[in-house]
């Protein structure tokens, strides 16, 4: 099923591919976050060849973040402190016969430990589509929402995150699902770099090529969403509805 404030599957995947293409070809990303560049390259090839089955991406990048620092500060390469956090960014757009089944984006913040990667925070940004089969969900929730924790991603387990580390966050509890604007890959990566910045990532975010991508994705996924919110709030159809009336789905 489609949502009137959400782009078509083709447009969304095309846009996500352009983001991967940028990440795989960017000097800053390649030099500083090899896994992100490498994954962008591999998932780009995967999704380009298999548009019809959707889009997938999983990667991570390591940053130094002062509040996560403990003990005396030691400088490593190029005068920077060694990274202490691993930021996982992932995306899954699942299609069936060209129709959205599921769209989810994930940001996880893990500590770079000597053993494993303890999860400090984990968020899912989901778009929920009605299955169209008349079956009701166990509980109504916003069609676009932010969820704290969510289930373990198989790729995170492969990366070395232990089941016990995610269990501490009680992933069985899906509620509350917070009504939230839709996410996209560039918006997710940009947010991660913005929230956990260093001087070089700030320069990367400031490049015109990256800003162009951000603006395009804002126009693609955010503009129609906010327009719809505005329409509801100013009540252009005189229906006296709340945002929850419009955006919660069964």
């Amino acid at each position: 099923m489609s949502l009137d404030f959400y782009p078509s599957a083709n447009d969304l995947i095309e846009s996500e591919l352009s983001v991967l293409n940028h990440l795989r070809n960017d000097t800053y990303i390649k030099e500083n976050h090899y896994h992100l560049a490498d994954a962008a390259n591999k998932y780009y090839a995967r999704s380009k060849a298999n548009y019809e089955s959707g889009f997938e991406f999983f990667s991570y990048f390591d940053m130094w973040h002062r509040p996560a620092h403990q003990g005396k500060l030691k400088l490593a390469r190029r005068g920077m402190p060694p990274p202490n956090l691993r930021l996982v960014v992932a995306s899954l757009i699942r299609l069936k016969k060209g129709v959205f089944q599921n769209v989810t984006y994930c940001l996880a913040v893990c500590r770079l430990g000597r053993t494993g990667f303890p999860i400090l925070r984990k968020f899912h940004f989901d778009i929920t589509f009605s299955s169209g089969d008349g079956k009701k969900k166990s509980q109504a929730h916003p069609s676009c929402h932010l969820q704290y924790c969510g289930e373990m991603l198989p790729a995170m387990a492969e990366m070395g995150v232990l089941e016990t580390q995610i269990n501490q966050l009680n992933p069985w509890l899906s509620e509350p699902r917070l009504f939230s604007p839709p996410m996209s890959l560039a918006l997710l990566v940009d947010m991660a770099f913005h929230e956990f910045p260093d001087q070089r990532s700030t320069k990367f975010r400031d490049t015109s090529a990256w800003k162009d991508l951000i603006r395009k994705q804002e126009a693609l996924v955010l503009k129609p969403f906010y327009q719809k919110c505005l329409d509801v709030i100013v009540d252009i159809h005189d229906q006296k509805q709340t945002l929850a009336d419009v955006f919660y789905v069964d």
Partner: protein
Amino acid sequence: MSISRKIFWIDDDGRRKRTADDIGADFVNVNEEDLGETVDGLLKRPQPSLIILDHILDKTAGTNPFFKKGSTIAEALKEKWSTCPVVGITNADLDTIDLRTQRAYDELFAFSHFREYIETIGAIRRGFATIARFRARGPKDLLSLLKPPGDEIDRLMLALPEDLKNSFRDPSVASNLYTWVEKLVARPGFLYDSLWAATLTGLNEKGFEKVVALFDKAIYKGVFSVSDNPRWWSSRLTEIVYKRSPPESGEMSWHVGRKLPGIKDEHYSCCYKCKEEYPEIVAYLDAESDERRPMHLRCTNLDPRFKRELYFEDMRMMLG
């Protein structure tokens, strides 16, 4: 300028005439000859399609040490015949010849392995002739000589060295393009060798041989390509493998490659370090080794011998 089909082999060791005859070259024996005069005479003739030149010419007449080195002659020949490839051969250990001297030639081979390079030398000859006839209107035209997949052209343009971007009509373009293609062949990124290609598709090299025909359209057939040491466009490899076996959620090319016809358990790749399945990359055994094996990214770290380069795979080595 007219270019003849001739190959000149300039050497002061007459025993190499037989090898020169085998490849159809005119052997120019400079033993006890005045090299300057001989080269002057050659330069009055039409440009040949290839020159093979002995690197050490210490049995020629005359005492000037400059004329005892093939590299000096190579530069003089290039001055006049800038679009003619010059291949050096030597019995000396290549590692003892400094890079500046090596660069005087388009390629420098050990004579003891000459027969292994015959196909490459043929590819150099054909490639230079093609480029000499080719009228590039811009750097993108040069890329067409590589016959790349359409969706790699933009990345190749970005990766193209500045000297090729700016001097695509310069007579040295064939030499520069050869040097770049050599790099594309040597460093995995745009092109993969059989070990990288096998690993990308989740197979060992024996397994890849079983399905190699499926990847015919991925083989590099551009300028300077050789069939005895093939390369595959990595983007075409993944495109073919994903189209034949669409991936399930979480699957990458090294998962779906195992679903190719005729593949059995014995053809699956495995990580040399941890012995577990699905290695994603190829890495050296250590920082001194030239032996490579399939490994997981997590079982390796950066090989300090190599610089990290945009558009190319990282060169890695097994964790100690």
